[in-house]
């Protein structure tokens, strides 16, 4: 099987070995950053003068929300690469991203909802960010649903890749329309899921640590999933037996 005309990142055994080597480099720093961020945010940072301790939700909510969007973007780009250059590894990356992204979206919704209760008194509010997150979750679910609807892996890859690309184009449009929709009915209650209005360095530093930590965590999980995905797709190839023996 000649992979010679692919860029070397298109080579599954290469990607597998690379992923295996790199995972700890992401996993440990991720753990450290998250722990440090949690300590800094939940313990060290002073309560906000306006929202008290309620603002601390941003330390989990913001990273998960940011990642849910970033993962969708990565998924869309990987899907586009797989679609245009027919790289199977790119499809494997997109397939690995989807469940992780969906999980982060659920986490963002859950944290937004849980921490919203003390803030506004309800578990759910149709503010632009939460609504956009919800629609993003539907996009992820649609992608996963389309994937599982095909028996043929190649069809599943290509169809879901096209969906991911279309979705990627649609995400800004959806977000824009949701913001517009929400602004129309602004009035009685300001439901924006914002954080404190004034950020002190003591508040910001842990937040940045959490964002970086979660991003590294995502990469670590992605690498692990990617390895499994590559193994599953290439299980008939000879290099797999050698790789699993070591």
């Amino acid at each position, binding site marked *: 099987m000649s992979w010679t005309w692919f860029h070397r990142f298109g080579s599954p055994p290469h990607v597998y070995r690379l992923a295996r080597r790199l995972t700890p480099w992401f996993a440990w720093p991720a753990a450290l950053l998250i722990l440090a961020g949690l300590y800094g945010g939940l313990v060290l940072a002073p309560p906000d003068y306006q929202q008290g301790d309620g603002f601390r939700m941003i330390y989990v909510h913001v990273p998960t929300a940011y990642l849910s969007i970033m993962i969708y973007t990565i998924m869309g780009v990987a899907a586009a690469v797989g679609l245009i250059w027919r790289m199977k590894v790119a499809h494997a990356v997109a397939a690995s991203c989807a469940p992780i992204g969906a999980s982060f979206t659920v986490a963002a919704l859950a944290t937004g909802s849980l921490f919203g209760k003390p803030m506004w008194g309800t578990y759910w509010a149709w503010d632009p960010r939460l609504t956009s997150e919800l*629609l993003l979750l*539907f*996009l992820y*679910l*649609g992608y996963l*649903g*389309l994937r599982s*609807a*095909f028996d043929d892996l*190649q*069809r599943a890859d*290509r*169809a879901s890749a*096209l*969906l991911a*690309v*279309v*979705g990627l*184009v*649609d995400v800004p*449009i*959806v977000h*824009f*329309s*949701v913001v*517009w*929709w929400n602004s*129309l009915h602004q009035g009685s209650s300001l439901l924006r899921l914002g954080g404190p209005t004034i950020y002190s360095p003591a508040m910001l530093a842990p937040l940045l640590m959490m964002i970086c930590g979660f991003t590294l965590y995502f990469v670590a999980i992605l690498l692990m999933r990617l390895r499994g995905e590559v193994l599953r797709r290439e299980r008939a190839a000879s290099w797999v037996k050698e790789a699993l023996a070591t």
Partner: protein
Amino acid sequence: MNATAAALPSREDIPSALDVAGLALMRDLRLAFRKRDEIAQPLAFFAVVTTLFPLAITPELPRLREIAPGVLWVAALLAALLALEHLFRDDARDGTLEQYALCGRSLTWLLYAKTAAHWILTGLPLALVAPFAGMALGAPVHALGGIVITLAIGTFALSLIGAISAALTLGTRRGGMLLSLLTLPLAVPILIFGAQATDLAMRARGFAAPLELLAAFAVLGVTLAPLAAAAAVRISLE
């Protein structure tokens, strides 16, 4: 036997792009009129769904008037989703979709014609029937024109977007439910601006702003969606 088997058609013989689109359009229209129930069903569905809301909420017209735009749009959206299932289904099954992909003309252009035919057969009738449903939900008479216009543009944009998901789900067993799940998030902008435009029309306020945005989406859909749908069709033929 007629023309030499191995000679390519001469230049005058080759139909123009407009002819080709016209042929595809006429074929689908003619087919639909032979199987009239496919036109009638989405309309009946729309009527039924619209009826459900007063039954489920209240018979009081003032309250219904409040929610009328939303009801009309959701019902139209659901009816359109139902109709999308048969946009490509038959052609994929009998091999004519394949022939479209192999005829040497732009598949994007052919799909545009197919989608236009689909809108004429489903979206446009919905838009024309909607005023009646609107009146049943308490819409004032002056709003009826606005309802038709907003729903006409909206269903057109929906047909375009829906063509993508209809093509993507070709060959899957779950078809309908998955089709809806894929189309709805993509259709949210259309729903938001369309319902807002209809709402403003019902309040006798100028609804130009959201209507323009809706029309902008329709234009965007026209240019991009058939491209994506053609790519999806090619993927389904692999």
